[in-house]
Structure formats: structure tokens, C-alpha cells
């Protein structure tokens, strides 16, 4: 098949083995638990009858291959099983927390882009100067300072010392600011460096000289011509980093008591509620794959010179 449709279809086909591997891996994780997951959950005081009943209830007394086949059937139906703790549907629990995580990740992405583009463009424009150095130092700090150190420091400054923003909670837009800043800082740092390099490269292109020769002012040249071309690699990194944001969200949610899927994962791990942990991991991984594939497809549409490897 030729043309863009063929390229897109082939790229989508590449996702299938990855999806298979992810589901299989998440299934196998349960069997990594030393000893027995049910025993680990119930503890040493459980009677053999209780253990047997629960193993039967969760199908863990079936042969491994049968369990694997059943797991696939469930996943394809969108059923992620029931939790160990209160035997409620895993999918229902995850769905109730998912929007909060998505909200946080999107806000962090926005924060990162809003910081990185002006900072990166300024650094490139004043290449080698003091503003470039300041932007570089800020970018390095953003990369070096992990979100679990940055989060508490932001709380200390903006909530404890200045009393401007709430230290934790959920609901108001004000509650979103510190978590989004914490989660978005590292991405802002990476993007700043990328925008700077990308703009610097574009500034040496012939069309920039032409635009300047036409008498366009520097602002128009920079924002209408250069930035538009510099943003193609930035779009890709933003897409790829969205998954990293989902990973980082687990830590950020814990710092700010944000009721998202990350907090749910940590709670499930602490309670040894393995079906819930499996469900959370699967949903986060699937989100990551969907966003990555979408970014890749978008990139190919934006820049048709890229081939499927």
C-alpha cells in the first residue's frame, strides 16, 4: 500500500506485538510474587480454607495457561477483574481516578511548554550572552532537581512561607498549580534546551536571511518563520515525554495527595491488592502506548519525509 494511509497502517501494525507483550508482562507480574500472592495478601494468620477459597475465587488454582487465556478474554472485554481488598471491579476504581491524573499531566505539559518556548527562544536569540547562560542554568536545575525534592520546596515557599497556594488537595484550579509546576519542571528543562538548539539551527537557514532582507522585523522572523519550523522536533519530544509525565505523576500525586491513578497504584501496592496493581499498570502502559503512537503518526503527517523503519 502506498501513500500516507499505508504508512499509518504499517505503523499501527507495529503496535500489536507491543500490546501483546505488555499484557503478557502484566499478567506474569502476579506470578513473580515470592510464594503465593493470596498468602502474601491474607498474611500468616489466614486459615488454609480462606486461602483455598480466595485462590478459587480469583481463578489462581487453574493451570497457568488457562489463567493466561482467561486474562486475555477479560482484558479484551475491558474487564480488569475485581480487587483483593473489597472485591469491587478494578476498572471502576481506575476510571474514578483516571481523570485526575490526566488533568495533572495535561496541566504539567502546558506549564512546560509555556516556560520552555519563551525561555528557549530568548536563549537562542541571545546566544552566548547572559540570558543564554541564565536559561541554561535554569534548564540544568530543572533536570537535576527531582520532582520529589522540588515539590516539598515549592510547598515550603508558596504555602508555608508566603501562604499563596494550598499545599495539597483537589478541586480548585489553585490546587493544580503547585503539582503541575512540580511535574512539569523537568520537561520544561528538557524542552528549553531543545527549543534553544532547534531555533539556533534554524536561524542559520537561508529563508531567515531572505525574511530579514525583506525587511521583516526580528519578532516576525522569529515567531512567524523560525519558531514554526523549530517546533517539529519539539512536538515529538512533547509526545514521547507525556509517558514520562505519567510515570512522574505517581511521585507528584504522592507529594500533593492528588487523588489520581498514581496514588491508587501506591495504595494498592501497600495493601498488596495485586489485581488492582496490575490494572493500574496496564492502564498507564496503554495510555503511554496510545500517546506515543499518536505522536509518531502526527509526526509522520507533519513531516512526510520520515519512513517507517
Amino acid at each position, binding site marked *: 500500500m502506498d501513500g500516507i494511509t499505508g504508512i499509518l497502517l504499517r505503523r499501527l501494525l507495529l503496535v500489536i506485538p507491543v500490546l501483546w507483550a505488555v499484557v503478557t508482562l502484566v499478567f506474569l507480574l502476579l506470578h513473580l510474587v515470592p510464594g503465593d500472592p493470596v498468602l502474601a495478601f491474607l498474611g500468616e494468620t489466614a486459615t488454609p480454607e480462606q486461602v483455598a477459597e480466595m485462590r478459587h475465587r480469583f481463578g489462581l488454582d487453574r493451570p497457568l495457561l488457562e489463567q493466561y487465556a482467561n486474562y486475555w478474554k477479560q482484558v479484551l472485554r475491558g474487564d480488569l477483574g475485581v480487587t483483593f481488598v473489597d472485591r469491587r471491579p478494578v476498572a471502576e476504581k481506575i476510571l474514578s481516578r483516571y481523570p485526575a491524573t490526566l488533568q495533572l499531566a495535561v496541566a504539567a505539559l502546558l506549564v512546560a511548554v509555556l516556560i520552555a518556548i519563551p525561555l528557549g527562544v530568548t536563549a537562542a536569540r541571545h546566544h552566548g550572552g547572559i540570558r543564554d547562560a541564565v536559561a541554561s542554568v535554569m534548564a540544568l536545575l530543572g533536570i537535576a*532537581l527531582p520532582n520529589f525534592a522540588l515539590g516539598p520546596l515549592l510547598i515550603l515557599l508558596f504555602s508555608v512561607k508566603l501562604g499563596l497556594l494550598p499545599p495539597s488537595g483537589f478541586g480548585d484550579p489553585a490546587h493544580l498549580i503547585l503539582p503541575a509546576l512540580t511535574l512539569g519542571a523537568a520537561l520544561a528543562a528538557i524542552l528549553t534546551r531543545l527549543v534553544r538548539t532547534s531555533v539556533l539551527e534554524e536561524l542559520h537557514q537561508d529563508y531567515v536571511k531572505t525574511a530579514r532582507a525583506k525587511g521583516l522585523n526580528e519578532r516576525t522572523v522569529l515567531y512567524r518563520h523560525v519558531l514554526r519550523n523549530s517546533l517539529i522536533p519539539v512536538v515529538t519530544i512533547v509526545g514521547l515525554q507525556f509517558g514520562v509525565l505519567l510515570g512522574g505523576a505517581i511521585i507528584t500525586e504522592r507529594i500533593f495527595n492528588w487523588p489520581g491513578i498514581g496514588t491508587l497504584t501506591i495504595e494498592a501496592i501497600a495493601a498488596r491488592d495485586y489485581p488492582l496493581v496490575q490494572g493500574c499498570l496496564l492502564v498507564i502502559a496503554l495510555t503511554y502506548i496510545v500517546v506515543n503512537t499518536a505522536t509518531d503518526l502526527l509526526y509522520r503527517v507533519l513531516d512526510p519525509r520520515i519512513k517507517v523503519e
Partner: protein
Amino acid sequence: MGWTGKIGWVLVLGLLLVALWAPRLAPHDIQAQDLAARLQPPSRAHPMGRDEFGRDVLSRLLYGARVSLRVGLLVVAICASVGTIIGALAGYYGGWTDRLISGFLFNTFLAFPGILLALAMIAFLGPSVNHLILALSIIGWVSYARLIRGQVLKVKELDFVQAARAMGASDARILLRHVLPNVVQPLIVQATLGVAGAVLAEASLSFLGLGVQEPMPSWGKMLDSGRAYLTTAPHLVLFPGLAIAVTVLAFNLAGDGLNEWLNPQRPRR
């Protein structure tokens, strides 16, 4: 090497010495509790104050460097070794070997956010330093394998490799004596930057309670337990945060500096 790179290497060396000499440098016993003096701010006897059990923060921070660097260096050593072997096989043999390794294995491992896979493994295996090292190695080798594969693909077409093959050298000899020595430079750069990533990952997982366990001090864990006393004893968050940031910064600067020094023609990242 630029001055930032040099600063990076000086810091790296300093950190290694601190980790090595932690028992001699630590002014107090890291387990000695004094509940009467809990959460004490920095003082002359305790330059970084005391924690929620009255233990000396500076001493625990020095011992924490041991854990961080041990995990960081071990993970990178394992990842670089495994990645080199797998990447070299894929790049050198090509064909189905390469399709299986780079087409399937790489894509599958990169389909997960790394930290999530590590977290998942530790959640099911149970938290411990060894499980942490195992999990971080399993997610970390891919980037090294990709790097080495790309390098080997380039080097194996060069004249001296073709000449060795024409002279009847075995595959093992060609790989070990001719190809690998020529791909070592980018590997060292990536490994230096990789230590920063591994240190950060260790601290993140320990922060979530899934890494280093008591009584061993770890920067990530110190930060987590310090959060509860943010208003009364901010030094409990400040110093471990600073330690992590300086370590990550040091290895990043050192790696970038090394890269610049080895490849003067290549533009800075």
C-alpha cells in the same frame, strides 16, 4: 574539556571519595537516637541538624551517598555490559537476530515508562536493594544496546574490519578486537550520564518506599520521611534534596564535558 565538564568531574570524584570514606567522615553514629533532641535545626555539633528520631542528618547523608552511588554504578555496569553484548550481536549479525532484538525487544521495553516497570517489578517481588538493582537494570539496558547496535552497524563496514574478515579472522575476534574498541567512547559518555539517571531512579523508588529499606539511610527515603516536618524542620527535606541534585548535576556535567572533549566537532546538546 570545558570548565563545566571539569567541575562535573571534580564533583564526581568528591562524591566517590565521600562514599568510600563515609564511615571515617561521619561525625556521629547513624543509628544513635536521641528523642529529646528530635528535629533540632543545624548546629555546630550537628551541621545539618537532627531528624525525627534525633539522629545526625549529616552522617546519614554521607552514608546515603554510599547507597546512591553503589546502586548507580552497579546498575550502569550491568546495563552497559548486557546492552553491549545484545547491541553488538544485533548490529553485527543483522538479519533475523537484529529484527528480533531491535524490532521487538527494543520496542517492547521502550513501550513502558521505565520507572513504572521498575515500580511494578518491585511491587510484586517485594522491596529490597537487590530487587531495585535488578529492576533498574532490566529497564536500563535497552538504551545501551541501541547505542552499541548503531555504532557497530557503522564500524563493521569500515575497511579495517573488512580486511580482518578477508584474512579469515573469526566473528568473535573481529567483534572483540576490531569492532568493540571502536565503539567504546560513546559508551563511556552514555554510562556517565546513566549514573545520574540511576541515582535519580533509586531515590524516586526509595521515596515511594520501594527501594532501600531501614535501617540503611537513603536520600530518597530521608526526603520522604522529612516531608511530614516541612514546617517545623525544613532541613530534613532541604539537605537530602540538595544531595540528590548535586549528584545528578555532577554526573550530567561530567558526561556532557566528556562528550564535548571526545567529539570536539559535535555541537553541544
